[in-house]
């Protein structure tokens, strides 16, 4: 077993500022404290001299433009789960350690990733790309990894002896023991973990309690860590709320990128794709806009998903500035990489049909692309419908025109000759759309061949229904 622990010191900050691309000087408040104190600040704010533990008033005095917001614990949980989804590609056993750490068992994946250094590099570069500051450590014991991730970034200790030696050198304040236990041990004059490890067990239990002793055992691998394995969810739903109303599609792109990336992370974890997702925008006056993004074939690539969503969003007309953006996807089918027909020649742009189909849909909208199917109905206007065509069809016996008018029109002037007919079409008495017509193939004065009908038993009142184009 090798447990890798990732810690994200900036997670609370990123979660609270998820909807803002490049905030100016910003700081996060610790809502626990009675006094409103700065919990963390970004680089710009730190450049103004803003430090952890300052009061808001003091910070504002240093930097009046400071953007301050409270921690958003729900958003933190979601972000942690999203990161877990991303980590799932490296390990089948990923565990959340709230508020800001993730453990994953990588012993079984080492061979796949050709050892620890390449694996660590892939994890780190992937997270850097997504803009998540993190620290990483790995040992055979989950709790020890968690401790080292905070104190010794990059440390990997494969053996039990090494772990115990390194733990021994740690000051008690970094041991992960509860604060009361640390205070009690400090009062007794202990400073480092190795001094504690030498103490007789009953004595130690009396001083720091069962839980404290159990923690020390877990650090040294003498007690097991119970780590519930995180499971990738079966659907995706995430919403970002904005502080200010965002007008137009441009400012929405940053939150959109975050959402599509989160979706892609989940898809990677599930080894699945997405064929259809919905963007929902809530507007100022309680209106909502729903944008459905559908694809010809399942996709999973973050960049591709973002581009597809972006083109849809930019084409949508938004009735008012937006307050929230939500991405919802519940159809997450298995992903199969696109396979080309072996005999289909690839020329030009070399697009395959699904890609072309997607490009067209993205610009023209879903309704613009359609296919025709034959429906087994005697009424001509119902025998052809937009839909998914099947292989074999049954056809009417009579000759049919290639163009059908959307609705029959009175024919002016009357046809000059009847070429064929009549063909009596009588149907629909069962569903109220009764039709009883005699169809003829006729020639017009311009030499056109038309499909026209008369009510049975009459000789005028020609209605034009199609062209033999």
């Amino acid at each position, binding site marked *: 077993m090798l447990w890798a622990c990732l810690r994200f010191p900036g997670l609370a900050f990123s979660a609270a500022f998820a909807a803002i691309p490049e905030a100016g000087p910003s700081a996060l408040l610790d809502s626990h404290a009675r006094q409103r104190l700065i919990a963390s600040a970004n680089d710009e704010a730190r450049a103004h001299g803003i430090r952890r533990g300052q009061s808001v008033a003091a910070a504002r005095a240093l930097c009046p433009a400071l953007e301050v917001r409270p921690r958003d614990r729900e958003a933190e949980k979601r972000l942690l789960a999203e990161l877990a989804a991303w980590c799932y590609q490296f390990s089948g056993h990923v565990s959340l350690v709230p508020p800001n750490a993730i453990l994953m068992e990588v012993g079984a994946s080492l061979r796949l990733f050709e050892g620890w250094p390449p694996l660590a590099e892939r994890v780190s570069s992937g997270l850097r790309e997504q803009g998540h500051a993190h620290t990483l450590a790995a040992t055979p014991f989950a709790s020890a990894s968690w401790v080292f991730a905070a104190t010794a970034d990059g440390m990997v200790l494969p053996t039990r002896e090494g772990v115990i030696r390194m733990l021994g050198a740690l000051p008690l304040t970094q041991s992960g023991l509860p604060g009361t236990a640390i205070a009690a041990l400090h009062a007794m004059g202990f400073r480092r973990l190795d001094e504690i490890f030498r103490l007789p067990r009953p004595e130690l239990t009396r001083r720091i309690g069962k839980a404290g002793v159990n923690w020390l055992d877990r650090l040294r691998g003498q007690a097991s860590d119970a780590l519930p394995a995180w499971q990738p969810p079966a659907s995706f739903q995430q919403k970002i709320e904005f502080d200010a109303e965002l007008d137009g599609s441009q400012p929405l792109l940053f939150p959109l990128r975050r959402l599509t990336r989160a979706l892609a992370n989940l898809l990677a974890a599930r080894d699945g794709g997405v064929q259809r997702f919905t963007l929902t925008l809530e507007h100022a006056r309680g209106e909502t806009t729903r944008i459905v993004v559908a694809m010809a074939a399942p996709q999973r690539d973050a960049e591709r998903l973002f581009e597809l969503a972006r083109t849809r969003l930019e084409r949508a007309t938004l009735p008012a500035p937006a307050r929230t953006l939500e991405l919802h996807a519940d159809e997450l089918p298995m992903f199969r990489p696109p396979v080309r027909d072996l005999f289909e020649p690839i020329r030009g742009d070399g697009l395959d049909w699904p890609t*072309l189909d997607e490009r067209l849909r993205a610009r023209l909208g879903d309704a613009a692309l359609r296919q025709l199917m034959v429906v087994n109905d005697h009424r001509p206007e119902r025998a052809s419908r*937009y839909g998914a065509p099947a292989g074999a069809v049954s056809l009417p016996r009579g000759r*049919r025109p290639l163009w059908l008018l959307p609705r029959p029109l009175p024919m002016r002037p009357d046809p000059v000759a009847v070429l064929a007919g009549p063909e009596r079409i009588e149907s629909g008495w069962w569903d109220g759309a009764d039709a009883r017509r005699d169809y003829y193939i006729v020639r017009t004065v311009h030499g056109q*061949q038309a499909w026209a009908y008369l009510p049975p038993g009459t000789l005028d009142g020609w209605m034009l229904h199609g062209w033999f*184009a």
Partner: protein
Amino acid sequence: MNAIASASHNLAQVLDHPGIWRRSADRQPRVRALSTGWTSLDARLPGGGWPQGAVSEILFEHDGLGELDLVMPALAALTQEHRRVIFVAPPYQPYAPALAAAGVDLRFLHEIHAGSTEAAWSMEQCLRSGCCGAVVGWLPDIDYRSLRRLQLAAESGDACAMIFRSAEHAAQNSPAALRLKVSNSDEATYVDVLKSRGLLTTTAPLLRMRA
């Protein structure tokens, strides 16, 4: 005698090789084409059909002269080979039973419903993609420049582009490789070859399509 016969047979084989071009044998340069399915029309066209990787214009006087019938056999053949055929901005609803009766496998026929600017764009995308056998567009207002773009797109995607326009445009200049005019006279439909790239004379006689 035998030796000569087999030598000339060998020579014929060599000359059949697609890498060998002979200037003299027929005066028409080779044009790769898709049979129209109409024997008498094929005979009039260089390469014997709709030029591939090029734009063909079909200029028609009225709806209902059989102008679409002209392209149906080729489109049916393409869909039966599971190659995509795209209808861009048709003026009426293409009627599924008639298409199926003409032999079109509807699974490989797609229709794009678009306004005039989007129609030219869509047609270009489809032609250029390389995954469409034929793209048939109804573009009444298309200008020379856009036609030229479509011609280039058809070349790069090696697709057949067929554009239906009113016969009023017959007098205009066009970059299309083939221009046909469909008209009616004496109760019959005629097809004129107005222009054909690769054919030395463009004054082909009237071709009677059907009585």
